[in-house]
């Protein structure tokens, strides 16, 4: 076993992995650079995202109508990035609801997300200066089963009649049942998920939908924390780089001679840089 040797670059080592390492380091570097810039006070612009801009209005609507806000943090466990993003958004929404003195109901599907959500909402109320307004019973663990959880949430919608439903996180087949029931109950609905297959259902039944990466951007958008804004900018900068690489790849794939020319000049094809096997 090679104790000290971490990487040996030889003929057998895939060049694509080296390329991936380089791109990864560039990506991390960009994220960290812009995070540092944001912390130093540099102004970071984010384009308006309709669903997030509507969050204030949605919670305000619930306050005016005297009805609660329902926040569903998805059905995945805490190890899913979407759930983590959702908990960050929950913190901001709960702070907003607490400042407006509006109830926020948070049903959870997994036993591990439940205490995290409970503590997040409790701390949000404390941060808003309303620790007394926090109701422990409003953060609920319903069931570990997908459709039993769905039945529980739709029951909450029909009984408690929330004015605003917010679905943020990982959703699967239950997305349409939740969104459609929420629509029938008369709530304004904002949804966000990176599960692409569920987006059409949310788009059809909700007033606002955050698509894919907008869910991850939401934490930065709502909190306006410099490090989060900076990391968002960094990943956008990286996306420009990836876009350039994709365009290059399209060029090489479209003009077959270019690959042959590259191979004769440098000994490798453009595609070899990105295929592991």
């Amino acid at each position, binding site marked *: 076993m090679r104790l000290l040797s971490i990487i040996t670059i030889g003929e057998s080592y895939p060049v694509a992995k080296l390329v991936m390492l380089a791109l990864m380091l560039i990506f991390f570097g960009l994220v960290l650079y812009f995070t540092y810039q944001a912390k130093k006070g540099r102004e970071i612009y984010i384009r308006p995202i309709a669903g997030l801009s509507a969050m204030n209005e949605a919670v305000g609507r619930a306050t005016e109508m005297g009805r609660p806000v329902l926040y569903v943090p998805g059905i*995945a466990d805490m190890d899913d990035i979407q759930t983590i993003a959702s908990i960050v958004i929950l913190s901001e929404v709960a702070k907003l609801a607490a400042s407006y003195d509006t109830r926020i109901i948070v049903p959870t599907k997994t036993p591990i997300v439940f205490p995290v959500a409970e503590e997040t909402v409790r701390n949000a109320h404390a941060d808003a200066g309303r620790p007394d307004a926090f109701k422990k019973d409003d953060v609920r663990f319903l069931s570990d089963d*997908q*459709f039993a959880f769905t039945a529980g949430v739709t029951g909450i919608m029909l009984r408690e009649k929330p004015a605003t439903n917010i679905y943020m996180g*990982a959703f*699967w*087949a239950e997305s349409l049942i939740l969104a459609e029931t929420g629509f*029938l109950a008369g709530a304004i609905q904002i949804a966000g998920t990176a599960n*692409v*297959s*569920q987006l059409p259902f949310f788009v059809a039944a909700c007033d606002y939908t955050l698509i894919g990466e907008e869910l991850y951007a939401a934490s930065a958008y709502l909190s306006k924390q410099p490090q989060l804004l900076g990391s968002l900018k960094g990943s956008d900068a990286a996306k420009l780089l990836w876009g350039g690489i994709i365009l290059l790849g399209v060029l090489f794939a479209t003009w077959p001679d270019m690959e042959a020319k590259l191979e004769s000049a440098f000994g490798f094809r453009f595609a070899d840089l990105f295929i*592991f*096997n």
Partner: protein
Amino acid sequence: MNLAKLDRRWLYVVMAVVLVVPFMARIVFPIVPSDSARKIYDAIEALPDGSVILVSADYDPGSEAELYPMNLALFHQLGQKNVKMIITQLWPQAGPLVKDCLDKAYLPHGKKEGVDFVNLGYKPGGLILISKCNESILKAFPEDVNGTPVKDIPVLKGIESSNDIDFFMILSAGTPGIREWLEQCQSQIGKPMASGMTAVSAPDFFQYENSGQLIGLLGGLRGAADYEALVGKPGRGVLGMGPQSFGHLLIILFIVIGNIGYLISRQKARRAA
């Protein structure tokens, strides 16, 4: 009656009737298998004797209606071939369904457990488990579903890791499933992979078929019907095409009715203004 605002309960009742009647009347349509289904079928048929195929049943009772018929048709096909089969499950509730498929479609072809196939059962871990299989199947699944140590199972002799498997067929209803297999397995080792999945997931994975990472994909009950037609064992997939077709046509009709109602009410509003 406002066509744009029909009571949804009428929609539900009509849909229920339109689904149940063709099912009871056993209305069956001729099936023309898709190119994608045909590619999977041909790829499996072309596997030489002694090849190793891994079938991962990553579904549960909720998605059973779409994926069980695919599983059954696949096992019918594999039962007629002289290939070794390794079965895994990344979802805990898939176990009894897979055993049922084996009893109905695979074992009647005279196959023997341990000699022709092994059922490694369910293991938690999702993508970590798949990644571990790239290194060592023995370490990922020390025992099969019956508790027999994997190193003692004849069919697994000479099979150390995913690199020794010739074909992957993933029946996937969500996460963990085909996306994790593609990320952790196919992209790392480059072996042929195909998938059956729920209809709602299928549009997400055409991109992988387009790039060649998936040989083909079976989407929902239509995919199951295609595969049953190719294997020559029509079952619930083919039978389900009748209700599904009428259901789709009914939704199209409702959309048209809704738009007619919408246009009429828009005209009325314009005239009133």
